[in-house]
């Protein structure tokens, strides 16, 4: 500790400030995709007591024993400029030129002169995913274009493989696009899967990011999202996690533009001994920005969940409104739920609020259903089943719907169309 005689002229710095400074100076990490990896991820902007073990998480991933060729596929809609690039998966030829390959970085340099763009899971996770990317798609949605179909990304995790899809999207002014990623494990085994999604939503564009994860409880998954908004742009994130031994999800949205907005809808079902680990970081930099994060999940068996959810109301973002809401239903004595919903506020003309409800089935719901002849166990099953129903309702395409049913049969014993 140094002796600072000027310590009385200003307040002491916050940990979030010091953390940001350290991150900005840190060198970019490097990973060898063929080796075992262990790294920290999902660090929130404002850390708290270390003994709570919420300040970050550690993931250990075995070295791949298979190459997973052909396990990532893209279905690109008409009306966009797109290039597909085999990064580690060389079984398919590249379909884009270098200009397209560099389109995201070029757009980012222009949209983000202050270099504030970040990925939710952090630098190490980003570096590992980049090193492990099987295939990458770069999509530029032209100005005022509205493709009628979504960009579909299928990741079929395979035994022993690291199966990672990278998606870069630049939505030009006034355009719109839906990105749908489905991470599934159609074959038995154990491995790691992931997505690396980067989005620049130019002025008044509208980008929906939908992610569905239906992995068996033998797989690990790492979803890492970063997005940046221009004036009036809107990002809509929906992430549904139904499986995986470990599911990590880091999502960071930098709301740079005036009146830009972001909604996050996180749904999950924890079962077996699965671990769910989230880090949402919504930086409200522009004036009159709006965010709403809703996390809703069920924890059963011996599952665990850790949700970090940060609204950062940054100086200059006058008139910003940020809201967080979380509901967690606990259906077993052996579950563990951790939540760290932070609101950071460096501006006075803003509103930030958070609400959480964590516990068992509430008495009104329970009584209502029990008067209709359901046992407590059946009521809890109903909530677990509802998580699959919600996923099925929001799955895009038959393949995703089948992925939900595949896991539903394993977890619930029936598909989403059948009665328990």
């Amino acid at each position, binding site marked *: 500790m140094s002796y600072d005689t000027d310590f009385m*002229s200003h307040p002491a*710095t916050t940990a979030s400030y010091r953390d940001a400074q350290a991150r900005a100076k840190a060198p970019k990490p490097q990973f060898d995709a063929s080796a075992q990896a262990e790294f920290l991820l999902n660090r929130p902007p404002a850390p708290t007591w270390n003994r709570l073990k919420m300040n970050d998480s550690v993931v250990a991933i075995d070295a791949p024993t298979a190459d997973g060729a052909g396990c990532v596929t893209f279905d690109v809609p008409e009306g966009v400029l797109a290039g597909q690039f085999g990064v580690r998966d060389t079984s398919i030829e590249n379909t884009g030129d270098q200009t397209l390959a560099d389109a995201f970085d070029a757009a980012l340099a222009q949209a983000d002169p202050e270099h504030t763009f970040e990925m939710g899971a952090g630098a190490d996770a980003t570096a590992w995913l980049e090193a492990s990317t099987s295939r990458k798609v770069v999509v530029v949605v032209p100005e005022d274009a509205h493709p009628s179909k979504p960009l579909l990304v299928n990741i079929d995790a395979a035994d022993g493989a690291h199966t990672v899809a990278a998606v870069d999207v630049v939505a030009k002014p006034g355009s719109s696009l839906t990105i749908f990623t489905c991470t599934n494990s159609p074959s038995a085994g154990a491995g790691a899967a992931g997505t690396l999604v980067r989005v620049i939503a130019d002025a008044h564009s509208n980008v929906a990011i939908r992610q569905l994860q239906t992995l068996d409880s033998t797989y690990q998954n790492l979803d890492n999202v970063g997005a940046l908004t221009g004036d009036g742009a809107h990002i809509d994130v929906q992430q549904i996690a139904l499986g995986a031994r470990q599911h990590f999800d880091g999502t960071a949205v930098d709301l740079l533009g005036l009146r830009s907005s972001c909604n996050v809808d996180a749904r999950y079902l924890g079962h077996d001994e699965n671990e769910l680990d989230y880090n949402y970081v919504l930086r409200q930099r522009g004036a009159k920005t709006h965010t709403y994060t809703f996390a809703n999940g069920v924890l059963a068996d011996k599952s665990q969940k850790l949700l970090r959810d940060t609204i950062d109301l940054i100086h200059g973002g006058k008139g910003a409104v940020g809201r967080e809401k979380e509901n967690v239903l606990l259906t077993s004595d052996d579950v*563990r739920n951790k939540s760290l*919903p932070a609101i*950071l506020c460096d501006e006075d003309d803003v509103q930030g609020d958070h609400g959480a409800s964590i516990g*068992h089935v509430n008495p009104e719901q329970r009584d209502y259903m029990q008067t209709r002849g359901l046992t407590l166990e059946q009521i809890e099953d109903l909530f677990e089943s509802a998580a699959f129903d919600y996923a099925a309702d929001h799955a895009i395409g038959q393949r995703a719907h089948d992925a939900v049913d595949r896991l539903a049969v394993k977890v619930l014993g029936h598909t989403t169309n059948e009665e328990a």
Partner: protein
Amino acid sequence: MAEKPTIKEVDRSLYDFKKSEKGYDRLEEGLTPEIVREISARKNEPDWMLQLRLKSLEIYNELPVPNWGPSIEGLDMDHISTYVRPNTKQKSDWNSVPEEIKDTFERLGIPQAERSYLAGVGAQYDSELVYHNIQQSVAKEGVVYSGIEEALHGPYAEMIHDHFMKLITPHDHKFAALHGAVWSGGSFVYVPKGVHMSFPLQSYFRLNARGAGQFEHTLIIVEDDADLHFIEGCSAPKYNVANLHAGAVELFVGKNAHLRYSTIENWSKNMYNLNTKRALVDEGGQVEWVSGSFGSHVGYLYPMTILQGEHSSCTFTGVTFAGATQNLDTGCKVVLNAPHTSAHVETKGISKGGGIQTFRSSMVVTPKAEDSDVYVSCANLMLDDESRSDTVPAMDVQAQHVNVGHEASIGRIGDDMMFYLMSRGIPEQEASTMVVNGFANPVSKELPLEYAVEMNNLIKLEMDGSAS
């Protein structure tokens, strides 16, 4: 365009007056085993206490500085005197207290408070207690209120041995270890089974010495079915070097007992307030924390409650006001570790003039705490766009049949509220003060009238200094 108001220095003359250190006994600055041995020797302590001190120093040297709170780079232990003894011994009547020290406490209103509504008072000046007294009627019921060092040598020595730093251990964090190494002064309270105290006890801590630390230890044992209200106050004059407060408060609340612990913290703005407070609550027991934090340059303050007995409960009601040059990180921690326990937390934070205020909490519901309830509410008010206000609440739930609720909000004074007040002829400054006082009302209404008035005055003091 209207000119931006300038911040002026708050008039804190009521608290900000210095007394000479002539005749003081001041140990050299820094932290060494020799200093620790010297403190222990001067107090003629039993060997177990010396060993605890030395072990604590070892732990202090091993533990890292917290990486999650406000920076404490401006605090250099090599420039802190850990022991400063005023030139007097502990007295039990104000007339025997040296004039300068008596004048200090009279200006702070402590003797008057004792006469009006307190059952007992302890007054600490720098590292030592200078005054301690308890009403005869209370003492006759078996209530003990004495200096903790005095108790260490008397009939309660074994009780002290069994409880001292058992709840807050030196391993807890770096500044708990520091406290264990150099603690000095503080109070011991023992309320026997079934005794209900009609009037509160109060301890007041004054740190007068420049560049010094104050490390008092408060140990309170409230036996089964007993009831106590304890009030703690503190202040210091402002210097241009760092001062440090790293006290410890250990509270043991028996079966069906009730303890209210109220604090109005008003340290000067060169103070690093790294205090630790903890309560262990037995079956059916209740602890109520009422906390007002107004002073200090940097504050780390999170009273912790361990609900160990079935049907035990706690409430925490707090207000924190961070003005210019302040970074106050406050909140609370609760561990629910038995069935049918409950915790209710309601806090208010205000930041102004570039001050930083953080609400931080931790609610841990262990697997034993079935059928328990937790409710946390924190509301923060931003009075300008130079200040900062964060909420960092953590929840860790490991039991199934529980209800955990949390609400947080951050915003500024509503234009409609100001318009309403000003349209009725109330000047802007006064209207702001009224709104802030109303915002802090949940805390002030929990305090005895005299302390609620002091708290409202502190808010007015901060608000009056806001613009000119």
